[in-house]
């Protein structure tokens, strides 16, 4: 099956959650934050590697970073948010997928239909993680963005 022939398949379609359920939106954010984290991981390894070049190389790296100005801290803040979300949502996914939590049990469908895997328990899990993540992110922001004069 050639992928190109399928109607509206592909990356954009898979990341587009419009009209769908909450969990599909969280899938999209999870994917995007995952990419951000992978990108950050590679950048971080590259940055730390500069240490092996001696004090001068390291000082150059640091000044390049500081030359970004406020964007350096904002960027780190975004990465922090990504890590918090990806980790927190990841825990929910592990609970779903490995332990079957928040999914409900097989039932006999009764109209009007409401699948148990997307039911109250699942929604609660999503929102509680989101609340927790947001709280921590705000706190991280206070810490990271304090010296900028932004807040």
């Amino acid at each position, binding site marked *: 099956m050639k992928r190109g022939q399928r109607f509206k398949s592909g990356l954009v379609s898979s990341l587009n959650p419009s009209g769908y359920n909450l969990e599909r939106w969280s899938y999209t954010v999870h994917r995007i934050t995952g990419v951000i984290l992978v990108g950050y991981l590679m950048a971080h390894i590259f940055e730390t590697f500069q240490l092996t070049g001696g004090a001068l190389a390291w000082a150059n790296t640091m000044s390049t970073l500081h030359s970004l100005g406020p964007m350096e801290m904002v960027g780190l803040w975004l990465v922090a948010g990504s890590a918090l979300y990806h980790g927190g949502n990841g825990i929910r996914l592990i609970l779903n997928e490995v332990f079957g939590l928040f999914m409900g049990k097989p039932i*006999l469908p*009764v*109209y*009007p239909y409401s699948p148990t895997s997307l039911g109250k328990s699942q929604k609660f899990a999503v929102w509680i993680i989101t609340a927790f993540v947001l709280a921590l992110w705000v706190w991280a922001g206070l810490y990271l963005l304090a010296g900028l004069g932004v807040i």
Partner: protein
Amino acid sequence: MVETIDHDVLIVGSGLAGMRAAVEVLSRWGDSGKTVGVLSKLALMRSHSVAAEGGTAAVLYPEDGDSLELHAWDTIKGSDFLADQDSVWKFVSLCPIEIRQMERWGTPWSRREDGRIAQRPFGGHSFNRATFAQDKVGFFEMRSLYDKLQEFRNWTRYDETFVTSIVVQDGVFRGFIGIRLRTGALAYFRARAGIIATGGAGQLWKFTATSVSTTGDGIGLAYRAGLPIEDMEFMQFHPTGLIPTGILITEGARGEGGYLVNSKGERFMQKYAPSKMELAPRDVVSRSMMKEINEGRGFRDEDSGLSYLQLDLRHLGKEKIDAKLPFIKELSMKFIGVDPAEEPIRIKPTAHYTMGGIRVDGKGRVLDGDGRFVKGLWSAGESACVSIHGANRLGANSTAECLVYGRIVGEDVAAYLESEPRVPSPSENSAISTEEDRIFTNLFRREESSADVYSVKARLRDVMDKSVYVFRDEAGLTDAVRQVRALKDEFRGAKVTDGGRVFNYNLQDVLEVGIMLELAEVVAQGALNRRESRGGHARTDYPNRDDAGWLKHTLALRTADGPSFSYSPVMITMWKPVERKY
């Protein structure tokens, strides 16, 4: 160039009967190298069999008081004594075997407390012998058969292949010619054995429970091939079809205790069938309902102009409805916004089952006008007329018939192929080129179209709804025959307006309407000829059953001037006809 595709067995129609026959044939062959081709004008699993709701009848518990004799008696009495009794006996003997076989293949029958298969009451049966799977029995049986088919290797599926003619030469079946909708190309499917299992012709009526695909193709094609079709005037009108679409509400709703109520709030079945009430056979209930409506005790739906009565399930309670009738609740809420636990459902008799069909013998072998076996051709299921259901079918007997006859035919086909030597087939080129001309030259390339296919189809269905419905009379039927003939003439000027080749549904519509018109003529004329009332054929001008004059099957053969009718006797081996009271 028309492609030729060879198989040992070809099955047209992938509903319950078709797939059951395929499984039977394939189970007997193992890895013998022989192959089966399953053709369907829809994708497999889309066939109308999935819509069957209520149950499959079988004598599973003789130790509880049921007996094969009782089932046979119920069926024969239900058929208004037009059923062939020896075939009925064979049928009831195999039903329990089929139910248990389906169970072992994965069908999720509803269960009793002890883990055995449960059964429930159903119309016309004197014992609670309708085996059920919630209220979607046809759907679950289809899933089991379709899934079972996936186990075999030596079969090919031809989805969305519309068979346009049956090739029979010198009394021998040769093959089917069909259009592969995917490419728009004609193909010739050749085999030593063919099984027609294409279902009934419910779409002849506008107010019907059947799918859009139920246009009587197999029956019509057999008719065109010069084979006799039997008992076509007997159409079953199921009492409870949703207003305004005709979508089916199962008899199981009445089996679980539902009431039929008129505009005065009365359970009117008291007057017509005091002992069985709502669980009298369907023709009795439909006639009672229409009487109530005709005498002014019905309701009227303003939007569609249709009259209706009510099916009251409120007293069953929400829990019972959710557990035993969930599909009914879904249909009722989705299509008319009514929750059956809160409000009664609006219903009217709807065209449902074709008792008639291709004339076959007790083994499903298709017979020609002289009663000889058309070598290599069988039919099973609703498209066949054995006849087990006679003038009226009992509920839960059709899914049973499809399974039993799918098995019988599959067995017979396998045995036939063992014993018959391969006959070199003469050239079928003339048959193929005639078909090519008919479809691609005439229908496509005609210059002017003087008939709108969809308008003809709508008018045909209105005529059938009006004059060939539950109650019929001389004037109405004569008018119906006249109008159908006029529509047939008008249709000669029809042309395919969609010039594309790929998935040309317009072409399929044109071909289907051609078949529908021919069948409608047989139904209307046959009804006009039969001057009595029996089972599903009720005439207000001849309201009684006339065993002396009319205890016989109607056979229709195609001629240039329309159908020519003859009659054949009913096989009576166990019970003489008596008055049919419930």
